[in-house]
């Protein structure tokens, strides 16, 4: 077998692994249970809860990620390296540890004060949003920074020689040029928020009809051996995931400023 053949075979092995996992779901797939499971009040609540929470957390993180990413991509400032490093923390540290850190924070005096005088986070919808935000904020900043790094600084420099202030150069050049990268980063962040499990279950628990997001519902149903219902939920998540990959792939096609 040629070298080329072996390497391609390896890549199909990995492919096969994931494909078998998806296909094996269909062994337990029943059309009847699809509708039952899909339109049960509890499933619909999970879907709505997941979508709303992921949307809010993604919106918030992109809002702060765009200017942060620009600062990290364009300016040199004291502490830049520290900021850049800590952004990867949620990608490296276990989500369970992240959730635990949140829970521990709310057992601190400051956290307790916030809980008493502001918003209740532990075991609530806000806790879900916060868990997702903490997981996603670093990722979206990193992705948007990568998109902005792709845009040569010279565009802004030239815009400035043409009379644009730094803010105007950002609004008229950098922002429109990184638009597709920002959209792609938002979608990927949204998918990550939607699938967040470890941090969410740690801070918000797994209360049916209250904090049961889709991933938590999968875990709970499986624990109670409802395989057919679980399969339906997994298929929903997998379909959303694959559609998102497809969209992002289209968005990032042919983006080159070299």
């Amino acid at each position: 077998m040629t070298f080329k053949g072996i390497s391609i075979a390896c890549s199909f092995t990995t492919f096969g692994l994931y494909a078998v996992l998806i296909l094996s779901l269909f062994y337990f797939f029943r059309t009847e249970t699809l509708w039952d499971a899909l339109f049960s009040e509890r499933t619909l609540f999970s879907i709505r809860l997941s979508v709303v929470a992921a949307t809010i957390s993604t919106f918030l993180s992109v809002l702060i990620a765009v200017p942060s990413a620009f600062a990290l991509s364009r300016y040199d400032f004291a502490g830049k390296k520290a900021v850049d490093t800590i952004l990867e923390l949620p990608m490296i540290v276990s989500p369970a540890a992240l959730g635990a850190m949140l829970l521990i924070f709310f057992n601190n005096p400051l956290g307790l004060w916030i809980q008493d005088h502001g918003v209740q986070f532990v075991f609530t919808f806000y806790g879900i949003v916060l868990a997702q935000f903490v997981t996603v904020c670093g990722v979206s900043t990193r992705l948007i920074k990568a998109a902005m790094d792709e845009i040569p600084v010279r565009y802004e420099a030239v815009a400035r020689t043409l009379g644009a202030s730094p803010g105007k150069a950002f609004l008229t050049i950098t922002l429109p040029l990184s638009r597709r990268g920002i959209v792609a980063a938002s979608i990927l962040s949204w998918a990550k928020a939607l699938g967040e499990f470890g941090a969410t279950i740690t801070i918000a628990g797994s209360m049916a009809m209250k904090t049961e997001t889709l991933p938590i519902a999968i875990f709970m149903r499986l624990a109670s051996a409802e395989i057919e219902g679980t399969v339906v939920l997994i298929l929903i998540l997998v379909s959303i995931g694959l559609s998102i990959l497809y969209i992002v792939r289209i968005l990032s096609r042919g983006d080159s400023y070299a």
Partner: protein
Amino acid sequence: MLEVVDLSARAGGFVLGKVSLTVQPSSCHVILGPTGSGKTLLLESVIGLRKPQEGKVILEGNEITGLPIERRGLSYVPQDLALFPHMTVRENILYPVRMRGGTQDIENGIVRELVDSLGIRHLLDRSVRNLSGGERQRTALARAMASGCTYLVLDEPLSALHESLKKELWYLLKDLQRRYDLAVLMVTHDLEEAFFLGDTVSVVLEGRVRRQGTKEDVYEHPASVEVARFLGIRNLFHVEKEGGTGDSPLVYCQDLRTTLKLSPHAGKWNPTSTSSFAVGIRSENVAILMPGELTSETHNVIEGTIEDTYASGALVTLMATGRGSSTSVEAALPRSMARRFALAKGHRVLLHLPEESLFVIDPDSREDLS
């Protein structure tokens, strides 16, 4: 007038020494140097993209060294042009007008004139992604000039173009410069471009200005071995003072085994203190005399044998070695002349090194001649 005074800058480990230069109104100053010599660093310090370590930039009497980029009043065309890819040609050209709050109308005053004189009216609604090389250049020039600013800073703007297109743009640039009274500061590594476009030239080698002056001056009198080599001059010879008056000194050239007469304008040297130095001559200034042509002008003629000939384009280059000498002289002559004389390897020729074309190498740099 744009003045750069004692500017020094640093990028990574690279240091650009103290540079001073002046761009006169309606003239073009070219910074000429090889890749990595610090040309772009110099330009970026003038434009404001980099903070210089020392020195001043003065525009029409006002120091602009500390001003933010957008308030310097210099138009800039970078090497890759940096046309905004998400805008049409029209939007690109109107960008400086828009940023300065002017009327965003392509038919307005200078913009209209530029669009016509650069011949890009038919491109206005095209995306800049689909322009050819020459069209991109014209658009970039129009955009840089649309704000009405008459100081133009160009960073090798033609380096990506093919030769024949490049020449078209040389003519266009000359024309624009005259029509709009532009003062141009430009960087290039292209010798022909530098001596075509520049009124004054600074040669930058390894972060230092090694030669500065009018184009004729720099072209004819490189003054140091490095600059001469960089300008493609391979005829560099050791000489020793022999005699003659201050007006027409005589030197003996060991390399060529002959006595050479120099013109009084051959360069700065001090015949009393320096007895051994070097002279050079451009290959196209070396003339070939046919045996019958030998006139009363007996100085500076060497009898040699053609070692090799190389034809390339308009000129034929030949290497000839004098009797008893191991150093060869490079002569370039028009193709038609080479054909008429039927010059070929092995032929004997008389080489004439006219005294007005010989220049003296600054003795301080002589030791570099190998």
